């Protein structure tokens, strides 16, 4: 099992490296959209500082959403998905490797980039630290729920938009607790509960999402 997990992980990492332009596009999207908001709401420092955690979280969330189709699209098209589904190992093994690789190559760079973007909003010092932490805790759940959505919409017309419709309402709880953790940290209020909920949600999703994902992938391949 571990051997297969590592083999899939290695392949995904290799593919992510060879198509690193795609990752850069997602990161660029993150940067561009984050810079859009001041054009819309004005440059009042206090306003920007207040809305920064929310804006950056929403933008990161949308960037994650953008990269979700990439999870299964190529493999489905070239037949690798069939072979994965036919492997003797249980699906969570290779699914876990795929999702881990995807998270590391997509969400982690976003979390690393977030403090740099926070500079544009001149946020309080404590936000620079906690924003990436909340992103790292919350993006696994986004990736996992998103993976189920990506599997359900695999190969359909306008699948990107449909995926967004399916998955964005389910993202709301993560968004709520992620932003609340950062703003509570900023305001000096306790925020351990929010962090715990984020972490707990990601763990629960790790346990449950692979079932839905594998079932949906089997349907897509029929």
């Amino acid at each position, binding site marked *: 099992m571990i051997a297969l997990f590592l083999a899939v992980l290695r392949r995904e990492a290799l593919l992510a490296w060879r198509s690193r332009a795609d990752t850069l596009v997602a990161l660029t999207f993150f940067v561009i959209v984050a810079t859009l908001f001041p054009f819309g709401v004005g440059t009042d420092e206090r306003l920007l500082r207040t809305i920064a955690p929310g804006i950056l979280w929403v933008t990161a969330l949308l960037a994650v959403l953008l990269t979700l189709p990439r999870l299964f699209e190529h493999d489905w098209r070239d037949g690798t998905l*069939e072979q994965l589904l036919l492997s003797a190992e249980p699906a969570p093994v290779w699914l876990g490797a795929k999702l881990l690789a995807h998270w590391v190559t997509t969400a982690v760079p976003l979390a690393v980039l977030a403090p740099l973007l926070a500079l544009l909003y001149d946020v309080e010092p404590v936000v620079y630290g906690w924003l990436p932490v909340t992103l790292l805790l919350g993006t696994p759940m986004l990736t996992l729920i998103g993976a189920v959505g990506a599997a359900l919409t695999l190969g359909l017309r306008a699948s990107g938009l449909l995926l967004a419709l399916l998955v964005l309402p389910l993202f709301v709880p993560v968004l709520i607790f992620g932003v609340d953790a950062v703003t509570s940290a900023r305001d000096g209020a306790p925020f351990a509960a929010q962090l715990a909920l984020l972490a707990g949600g990601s763990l629960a999703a790790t346990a449950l999402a692979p079932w839905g994902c594998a079932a949906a992938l089997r349907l897509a391949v029929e």
Partner: protein
Amino acid sequence: MALLRWHDLAGRRGERLLFHRLSATFEPGEVVRITGENGVGKSTLLRMVAGLLPVARGTIYFRDQPLSVARDAWLAEQCYLGHALAANELLSPRENVRFLCALMGAYPSSRAVDEALAQVGLAAQRDLPLKVLSAGQRRRVGLARLFFARTRTVWLLDEPLTALDQAFVTTLTRLIEAHAQAGGLILLTTHQEAPFCVPVRTLDLGAFRPARRRAA
């Protein structure tokens, strides 16, 4: 105890019933050609047997156990080669073959992989991304996997001979014969005549087509 047995199998694509009342028994050492015109359901049948499609009707028995019970054992003993190559165009033949072997639980040495690639004529191209290779060359990457599939008793091959030069048709048929002689079972769909040196059984899927206007 038959290795593989089909009982009253029916296959469907969408709402259309493609074939029905298909019963057959297969023993180790057999090479079976599934023939029929385009659209008769050869690929559907193979995918059903592999386990990618649900059975419309009937049961498939592997070593006398229905697939619903013996699914794990079945997945461990089959090797399915579909229409799609299962090869990623950003990876080289070497990387692709190693991954496909890993999916089968095989971890051959670099030398073994290189030898296999040499046998399918990809020695010089083994480190190039598949993107720059021709369709025929890409097909051969998928076939190279079969060199490491000897532990998989049942081979399900969907049109394996398409886009292959004559030399490689020979390589593949020798591979299939060797596997059959070692006790394996090979089911392949193909239009082409292949020069097999072992007796080949033919299963014409067209014979199982339902009569017109069949209410399911």
